[in-house]
């Protein structure tokens, strides 16, 4: 009897232990394949961690990520996620380069029951010298730069480089003449661009040409400005142009003023000037936003002829509808080359065209590859040859796309 009792005791323990174990295994399974590596293409002090979700993800309340400087710990929690996540970039400011770090991911369920993953590490954060993601940009930049230099050399040797007519630029002299005949001033507006905008720089070269003609015909030129630096550049340009035309006495600095640095305040100011001075010609060259149409329509209402030019794709339709001549996008950038016929500038213009051809060719090739791949994927059915061909094409497409997209 006692023996039975003792035996029962002996076996009771393991059974209880087995029961406890059984309860444990009903708890959550941890995340798997925890991986920690240096974040690529960065300035260092960042480690990428990734893992596979716990199979019990649906019942998990949250995921906690821990970090330590040695495999034995102590581990401190660095972040937690309330929804199923499989990756995290540890860019903590406390992270140091060239140091070992170890990571662990825990899943926590209701009643704070917890399951820890295996420890991953050591992971070392390192800065990189070259951002691999931007390789395509580098390649393209080198190709383009090479083209520019190449065509400039060509242009230096071959003086008669052909450039197609750009109506807006050809009309400049005629437009200035018209103003002179009417006895009205010319108005030139850079829109709301800064000197750092390429379009404003291009507009400056047009201003130089316009100012030179205006000096020769003794017509007044008004340049209201949105930005003070552009104003000083404009003043310099006009003064220079008047000197070159031999009429420095005609230069009036008070005609080139700063209005205001507010978009609609500027539009209102320019409109006011147009209505009072009634210019015969209005040039709208540079960067424009919503005020484009306001300026163009008011110019039309005072009977001026308008020559517009901008790279802002959203405003081009308005200019095309409302103005007599419009320089679209890169026609504006071509202005300095077109007006001066300097071989270096003409050469770079040609290289622009070449680069455009290359770009369009790349787009066409990649689009065709992608389309063929999509078609093959949908019609191959069970055909082995078509299936493998389709896979090849799609892989090719993905590789090209990966190479061409940067971050």
């Amino acid at each position: 009897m006692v023996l039975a009792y003792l035996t029962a005791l002996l076996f009771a323990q393991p059974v209880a232990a087995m029961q406890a174990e059984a309860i444990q295994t009903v708890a959550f399974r941890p995340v798997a394949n925890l991986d920690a590596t240096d974040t690529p293409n960065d300035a260092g002090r960042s480690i990428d961690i990734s893992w596979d979700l716990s199979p019990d993800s649906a019942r998990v309340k949250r995921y906690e990520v821990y970090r330590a400087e040695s495999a034995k710990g102590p581990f401190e929690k660095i972040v937690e996620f309330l929804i199923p996540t499989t990756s995290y970039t540890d860019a903590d400011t406390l992270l140091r380069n060239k140091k070992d770090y170890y990571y662990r991911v825990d899943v926590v369920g209701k009643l704070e029951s917890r399951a820890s993953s295996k420890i991953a590490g050591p992971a070392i954060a390192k800065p990189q010298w070259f951002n691999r993601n931007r390789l395509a940009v580098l390649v393209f930049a080198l190709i383009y730069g090479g083209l520019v230099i190449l065509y400039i050399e060509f242009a230096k040797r071959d003086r008669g480089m052909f450039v197609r007519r750009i109506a807006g630029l050809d009309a400049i002299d005629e437009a200035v003449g018209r103003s002179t005949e009417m006895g009205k001033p010319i108005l030139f507006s850079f829109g709301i661009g800064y000197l750092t905008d390429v379009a404003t720089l291009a507009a400056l070269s047009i201003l130089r040409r316009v100012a030179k003609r205006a000096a020769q015909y003794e017509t007044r030129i008004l340049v209201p400005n949105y930005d003070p630096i552009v104003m000083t550049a404009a003043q310099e340009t006009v003064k220079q142009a008047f000197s070159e035309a031999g009429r420095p006495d005609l230069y009036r600095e008070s005609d080139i003023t700063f209005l205001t640095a507010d978009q609609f305040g500027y539009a209102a100011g320019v409109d006011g000037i147009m209505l009072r001075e009634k210019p015969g010609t209005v040039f709208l060259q540079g960067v424009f936003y919503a005020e484009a149409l306001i300026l163009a329509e008011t110019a039309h209402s005072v009977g001026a002829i308008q020559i517009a030019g901008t790279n802002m794709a959203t405003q081009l339709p308005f200019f095309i509808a409302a103005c007599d001549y419009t320089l679209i996008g890169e026609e504006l950038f071509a202005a300095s080359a077109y007006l001066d016929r300097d071989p270096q500038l003409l050469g770079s213009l040609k290289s622009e065209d070449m680069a455009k051809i290359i770009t369009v060719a790349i787009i066409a090739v990649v689009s065709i590859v992608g389309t063929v791949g999509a078609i093959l994927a949908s019609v191959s059915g069970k055909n082995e040859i078509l299936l493998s061909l389709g896979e090849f094409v799609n892989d090719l497409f993905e590789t090209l796309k990966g190479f061409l997209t940067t971050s």
Partner: protein
Amino acid sequence: MKFIKWLTNIDRRIIFLLMIGAVLVPMLFTIPVPFEVGEPVQNAFNAIDSLKPGSVIMLSVDYDATSYPECQPMIVAITDHAFRKDLRIILLGHIPTGLPLGQEALERAATEYNQSHKAEYRQAVKHAGEELKRHTAGYQGSLKSAAAEFDQEYTPRHQETLDGLVSDYLEKVDSAAVKFQKHTFEYWEAVKYAGEEFNRHASEYQKRLEGGVREKNPGYVRILERAAAEYDKHVTEYQEDLGHAADQYLKRYGIDFVNLGYRPGVVAIIVGMGREIRDFYRKDYQNINVDSLHMMADVHNYDDIATLVSFAHGTAVESWIAYAGARFGQQIIGGVTGVVAPDLYPYLQSGQLAGLLGGLKGASEYESLIKKKGLASRGMPAQSTAHILVILLIVIGSMAEFALDISKRRET
């Protein structure tokens, strides 16, 4: 023929006049235009409508004055809806020049709500006041009978003093209400102050009553104290009734809505609020400590916020989705300009956005759902008539030109 020629070159001033008419007429005479409510807007409405009273909703102002016509009707409609459902509102924003607009919408919604419930509130306050007066009379009655019993003095002067204290108190509460029309924070400070004053004077009064008889008649003093304790309870009840009336009929700053103001740094704030809002917002927009705002006592992070609505004219909604939605599971609704809306459709389909109001159209759809026509509903017909006018002008101009051209060719 001259007429046809004129049609090809209508004076622009006539065109402008026609445009004024096309835009104004529908706005002046609200033409009911039947339209269907789209799914994104319906989902947004349902998300807010299904919230329990007392839930917290966070509004983020991520637009500025240039998008006022499109985004302002949205925030106005949603704050109206939120107050109607007795939700508590937290306002903040990432564009400093837009926050005044958000504040304007909040205050207007609160004022309108308070105005529409003013009668009931006033009624409740008056009722509570009469109750207090009744209990004061009862208190005085027991004082009088106790005095008679113990052969002590309780004169009409005693009576008047207490009466005077009570009417003084009630008057202060009333004048505070009249002075602070918007029922802002100051009103409740004033009421609280008046209440404390009254309590002080009342206990002074009591002490004076007792002081006269303490040594001579402890029995009388005991009865006085008991009566005072009873009265105290009634006064507290009165003050609680004020609070309940306000809870029920008014929307008050600090209790039903707060404005946390602007802090620079978009992503850091969105991520940081997942842990604790006070890490970034220790004070509200008036530099009042956040912890002294009653509403914020149990609001710490996204766990305590039921829904978040971002009103944006740029990419702010995507930031909210990426950091608050993806990381912390916060429900997000977007209220964006017409230009930005198409970019957000993918998020709607994947469920990362609970609802979307796009442009003036979206705003007017929401207004029709809450059955309160605002700026957007008045604007939509005007938008259509303006479009129709432009189409007509184009067509007339073209056709007149055809006629002119044909007659010219006939002559030659």
